[in-house]
């Protein structure tokens, strides 16, 4: 299988992260289905002209995240249940939290203050849920 993965040297992120992301995208959009064989470490290294150790690292981390399975001597396949969706959301949450913290920092808020505001937001959401529940109950 040809990988069509593209590595950018001006991306700024480590190459192994770029590879991981592109494998996950292919799985997320269904291009690589569970059970599909993916290129061997050495094959992908050759295709991308990237060191074996970099691909090895990307595959190890993908395995740790449960996206792929590697069998000694048999190569790697997409895991039967790659469980990508929760992971994708977690990644997005971290990204948004980083944004929140940066913004708070720009406004001169301490990290305690930012934490307090985050807690407040969570409380607001809870209240809204409770109200909604109460409201539905009343209707019933």
């Amino acid at each position, binding site marked *: 299988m040809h990988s069509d993965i593209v590595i950018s*040297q001006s991306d700024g992120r*480590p190459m192994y992260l770029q590879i991981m992301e592109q494998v996950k995208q292919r799985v997320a959009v269904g291009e690589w289905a569970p059970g599909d064989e993916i290129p061997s470490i*050495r094959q992908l290294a050759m295709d991308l*002209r990237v*060191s074996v150790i970099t691909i090895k690292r990307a595959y190890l981390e993908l395995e740790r995240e449960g996206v792929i399975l590697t069998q000694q001597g048999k190569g790697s396949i997409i895991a039967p249940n790659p469980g990508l969706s929760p992971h994708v959301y977690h990644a997005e949450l971290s990204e948004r939290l980083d944004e929140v913290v940066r913004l708070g920092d720009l406004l001169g808020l301490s990290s305690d203050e930012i934490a307090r505001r985050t807690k407040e937001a969570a409380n607001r959401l809870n209240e809204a849920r409770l109200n909604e529940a109460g409201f539905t109950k009343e209707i019933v």
Partner: protein
Amino acid sequence: MSDFSVQFEGVSKRYTHFSLENIHLELPTGSIMGFIGANGAGKSTTIRILMGLVHQDTGTVRVLGHSMPGDQAAAKLDIGFVSEDMRLYGAATLKWHMDFMRPIYPRWDQTYAEELARRFDLKPQQKIKGLSHGQRVKSALLLALARRPRLLVLDEPTTGLDPVARMEVLSELMAVLADEDRTILFSSHNTLDVEQISDQITFIDRGRIIDSDDKEVFLDRWRRLRLVLPPDGVVPRLPGVVEVGGSGRLPVLTTNRFEPAMVSACNDLGATVQAVDTMTLEEIFVANVHSRRERLTA
């Protein structure tokens, strides 16, 4: 068979104006090592000792299980060596060189040699003296690769090549590694090439090895932290800091022992971490060389 294709132990060589001191080097079989150093750092001397062309004063060198320089005749059958000053016969053609090598090396692969000529866009009938620098380098590389050596030693293989030729050369080097028993050592001062294809990286400066590790470990360990200090704040003491730059309240620390926990440690000490920058191999190399040189002169 040993898991290392190349092993240097305590190797030294003294010249009047330059000395190579206590070199330790281990190159695992099946991997690529990039050997980085400034001009005159000792890369070529190290490679010449590896090839048995220069004899070390002290220390042991083993290459593919052979002791160097003693067993160099046997070792060389399995080593492909390409260096900048390698001479091909100007009056002869590339084909003449191929025919010359063929009976000498039992593993010579004629089909592969012809395929490489096509891929490198070389005409075997052309005389060497009519070739450009890039074509000569590619010719030398073709002659080394077609022998299918277990160890390829390349002294500055990409220097002076145009971008297209560089890409062709790097592709062929990666193709060699499809076979897990084959190993490559290449020296370069083009850190971009080294960063892209190397598994192991070794930095050499002023005749000493100053760092040697997995590439991924290198790239993970080195970070630049940009801090904002409170008024009257002091720069926090962090592990592995090799350089403090920036200005008064906006210091920039370069560390070679980065861990994510450092960020919260800084915050606890009252310094805000504005950014954690990854570093390119080139930046790591320069910071590494500077800090070592400063320590030596301090």
